[in-house]
């Protein structure tokens, strides 16, 4: 099956193309910590480049998969609006895969449950915990120090940019954080494609981001502040 995967939940712009022989080509744009993501300027050019290199056209796509987050609100909307536009114009079915689920799936297999941890800024992380494909935790936004309460009692492996950033806090809470240079900390398209092709997805059709957080203005209205 020819399938395209997009993920823009983190500061990385990630694109993967599964070819008819089931191999996956990935193209990505990773920015230095603190740098602005380049989702708008890089997402479609990376995808077009992969198709071109494989001698394929957009209308050859048989499945489009997009990372639902949680992650940066603007990034998620760029990825999902793009994926929906491509699906509408090509007729390819669209599925959404939780970005934390994809992070965890890539790190699964070591006998431990895996925690995907994405930096949510404002002193919080987005967390999702998975064991053998089953979602045991989240996705939720919590302070790094609060993660230990969610995972009590088991040897969790933590991966993701949030796990890297808050390594000391998570390790202090009993989790194992993958090594500094491990590729498991980056969202990869291979896991998204594998889950999407297997039908192990979080949404189908007109997918929407997993925001987890409400807009600030909504929180203010609900708490009665002006």
């Amino acid at each position, binding site marked *: 099956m020819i399938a395209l995967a997009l993920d823009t939940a983190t500061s990385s712009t990630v694109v993967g193309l599964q070819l008819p022989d089931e191999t996956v080509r990935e193209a990505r744009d990773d920015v230095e910590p603190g740098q602005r993501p380049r989702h*708008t*300027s*890089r*997402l*479609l*050019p990376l995808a*077009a480049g992969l198709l071109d290199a494989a001698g394929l*056209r*957009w*209308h050859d796509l048989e499945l489009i998969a997009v990372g639902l987050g949680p992650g940066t*609100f*603007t990034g998620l*909307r*760029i*990825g*999902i*609006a*793009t*994926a*929906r*536009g*491509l699906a*509408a*114009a*090509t007729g390819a079915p669209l599925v959404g895969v939780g970005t934390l689920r994809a992070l965890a799936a890539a790190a699964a297999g070591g006998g431990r449950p895996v925690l995907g941890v994405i930096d949510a800024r404002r002193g919080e992380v987005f967390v999702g915990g998975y064991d053998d494909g089953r979602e045991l935790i989240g996705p939720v936004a919590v302070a790094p120090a609060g993660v230990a309460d969610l995972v009590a009692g088991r040897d969790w492996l933590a991966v993701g940019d949030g796990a890297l950033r808050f390594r000391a806090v998570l390790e202090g809470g009993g989790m194992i954080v993958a090594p500094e240079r491990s590729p498991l900390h980056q969202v990869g398209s291979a896991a998204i494609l594998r889950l999407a092709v297997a039908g192990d997805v979080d949404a189908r059709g*007109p997918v*929407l*981001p997993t*925001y987890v957080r409400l*807009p*600030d*203005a*909504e929180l203010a*209205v609900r708490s009665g502040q002006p």
Partner: protein
Amino acid sequence: MILGIETSCDDTCAAVVTPDGVIRSNVISSQGIHDRYGGVVPEVAARHHLELIDAVTADALDRAGVSLDEITLVGATCGPGLIGALLVGLASAKAIAAAGELPFAAVDHLHGHVGAAFLDPDQLDPPFVSLIASGGHTLLLRVTSRDGEPEVLARTLDDAAGEAFDKGARMLGLGYPGGAALERLARDGDPEAFAFPTGRTRDFSFAGLKTALLYKLRDLEADRGAADDQLRADLAASYQQAIVGALVGRTERVLAETGLTRLAVGGGVAANGQLRSAVRGLGVTVSVPPGPLCTDNAAMIASAARYVRSQPYPEYLGVEAYATGEGPLR
């Protein structure tokens, strides 16, 4: 056939326009969810755009009776506006264009308001003066050709005209957005009852007007406890007259200076009845498009897309959006 998409503020819009300027469809989905926040919240607007955009685009194609195969050019607003909102429409439009390997036009929102004048049934040929007044912009432009860059003759130094209406309405207890409510209240009032400043500068400025209303309301409350209905109507009428006077006075001056005899009016404030009748009294040929073409819409973006430089596939795939305060017309 041109597909236009516009998501610069809180309206999710898609339209189909023919190459010679006939509107085949013009779908506007007003979110109507920002009243509870007292103004447009960028994050809330962006979330709703994403929920609505596919259905709005499909609806525009449907109403036009065309399929994507018949679209030859896609145009989308790339700025200025709320960046998160713009990015939804831009990402969607680029993806649709890419999938069909179609050319794409990144349209400036203000070029779009000018482009509304190039649509049937009442196409206005340049050269003309364009007055664009809305909640986000207040500009006087000299438009010399359909594909040339308009020249900015006057702009607002602070608030936009529509913002002045909305802020005045809020002070008068009319809620948000209150431009239309203010106009209704003003019908029963005396526009000469209160003197408000309209300014003598070349550019527009509405911040002082807003402050003047605030002080007048305070004085009245100190005098009598609260402004009664007649006084509020008088205030609304005088305040509206000041805004319209500021717009029309500068438009008149610019028409005299340029010697141009045609005027196009656009933007949400063009829905104001007093402004419409005042510009008709200027003694020039006036084009005020119907309401849905004055407020933000995608037909004007599709119209402008015909005249801006479009890019062939795949050159535009990396096109970015730009925020309020950026772009060619400031």
